[in-house]
């Protein structure tokens, strides 16, 4: 039974030069406890599709889909109020820029306790206790101290841990991570990914990982979906995709690695793949 099902999702933006289709007939489905990676180049509509699920797109966007449901509940026909009871409680999201994702005017502790108190109805004291547990759970050293720290007093990796703590605070069934490690340096990337994987296993939640990093995909995902220019190119489980990619675009994407550089030029996807040549 899939947690999230999307069929034929299309997102169009009204721009000055006419309508622009950012997502074009995408299908997504994630099962309980599964890790789905969505990969693609910049501008391939990975993030936009997920923002559409969360209802976070600006008014200029038109979202259409044959089906968009969470746990059998129709997200398209839901009122704003109903949607808000799901989002932030059962579906949560973390973003690319951890430092920018925290409100600079308040301490980390205030922000996580606010979520705990308002979304879960905990008392002030209980929220504080739970915040400490969560901070410990995401591997923040000296959680008491860090609860009182402002975002600018913490490193990027720590801010991302705080964001993760906030995201898992309500025991969500689906966590969407939008390039969670892109803004972090390599050693921290590894730690954050390990943390996400551990939490995913512990909490048994579904995880959608949006990334353009094939290394991240190989390390974490159960299933991979490759997206290009708003269209789904290929979907396969992770071993199949890496060993035996069936779509030429996927092969091109996998070939575009620094190791395959010839001379002083790095390879790009377009060296291996031209649009229209594809079946």
């Amino acid at each position, binding site marked *: 039974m899939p947690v999230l099902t999307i069929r034929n999702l299309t997102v169009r933006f009204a721009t000055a030069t006419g309508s622009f289709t950012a997502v074009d007939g995408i299908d997504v489905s994630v099962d309980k406890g599964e890790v789905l990676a969505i990969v693609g180049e910049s501008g391939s509509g990975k993030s936009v599709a997920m923002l559409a699920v*969360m209802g*976070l797109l600006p008014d200029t966007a038109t979202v259409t889909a044959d089906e968009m449901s969470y746990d059998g509940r129709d997200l398209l026909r839901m009122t704003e109020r109903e949607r808000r009871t799901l989002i932030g409680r059962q579906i949560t999201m973390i973003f690319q*820029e951890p430092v920018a*994702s*925290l*409100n600079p005017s308040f301490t980390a502790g205030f922000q996580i306790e606010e979520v705990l108190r*308002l979304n879960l109805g905990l008392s002030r004291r209980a929220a504080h206790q739970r915040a400490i547990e969560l901070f410990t759970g995401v591997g923040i050293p000296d959680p008491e101290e860090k609860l*009182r720290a402002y975002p600018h007093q913490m490193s990027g990796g720590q801010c991302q841990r705080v964001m993760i703590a*906030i995201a898992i605070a309500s025991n969500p069934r689906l966590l969407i991570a939008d390039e969670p490690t892109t803004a972090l340096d390599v050693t921290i990337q590894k730690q954050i990914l390990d943390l996400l994987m551990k939490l995913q296993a512990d909490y048994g939640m579904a995880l959608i990982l949006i990334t353009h990093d094939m290394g991240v995909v190989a390390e974490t995902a159960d299933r991979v979906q490759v997206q290009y220019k708003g269209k789904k190119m290929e979907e396969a489980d992770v071993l199949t995709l890496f060993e035996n990619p069936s779509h030429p675009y996927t092969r091109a994407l996998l070939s575009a690695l620094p190791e395959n550089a010839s001379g002083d030029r790095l390879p790009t996807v377009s060296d291996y793949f031209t649009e229209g040549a594809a079946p």
Partner: protein
Amino acid sequence: MSEASAKIAEVSLRRRQLAEFWFYFSQNRGAVIGLVVFILLVLIALAAPLLSPHNPIVQNRDALLVPPIWQEGGRAGYLLGTDAVGRDMLSRLIYGSQYSLFIGVVVVSIALVGGIVIGLLAGFFGGWVDSVIMRVMDVILAFPSLLLALVLVAVLGPGLTNAMIAIAIVYQPHFARLTRAAVMSEMRREYVTAARVSGAGNLRLMFRTILPNCLAPLIVQATLSFSSAVLDSAALGFLGMGAQPPSPEWGTMLAEAREFILRAWWVVTLPGLAILISVLAINLMGDGLRDALDPKLKRS
């Protein structure tokens, strides 16, 4: 133990922030002087009944237009002389500070609250809400401020309360624009999206998430408007539309003393000086606040 240590750490954090604020504020010598003068002004206003030697509206018929004490003909009881109907200038000036501070606080509060709400609505919702609100604000801004205040007072009727309301309405677009601009730039930040993802509603997003991040420019604008409010209410008083005689408001005092400009300099000069000094002090303080609160001007 943890509870107590948490309290201590909280206090030390606050103290550190305060120390940092003071460090940047005290870099600006003018601001410190302004602050000192402003604090003196507040103290004088608070202790007016204790400090003033006479009742500010009692007319002493035996002492009309008495010059200040150091001048020939000055009398011991009247340190800064008396006005045309024998009221003690010093007492009137001391009580006048109450009026000025009261006007400043009330005008700025009304303008600030109104401007913040309107600006938040415009910046947050955008689209036609924004267009309608900002065009109305543009219309208000298109009028010369004192003229608009005069018209409003003429409509509402003269008097201090109406003058304050009028000035507040005139100032409110400045706050609205400032808030709107700050809100629009904050709206694009990711923490707003993150708060929305956590299930925050519109009101909470506006007032709890975004507003605290827009406060620094508003605080600066508020202090600078404070002095303009004092000045404008003095101007309205001078034109007979503000505080009505016999209340010892500085602008009204100036207006009453106009005809004695050549004969008795103290009746005109002293209220003018009082206005000048307080406005200057508050402006200097506002400058210092901007230096201390604007992160772009910080050196580290």
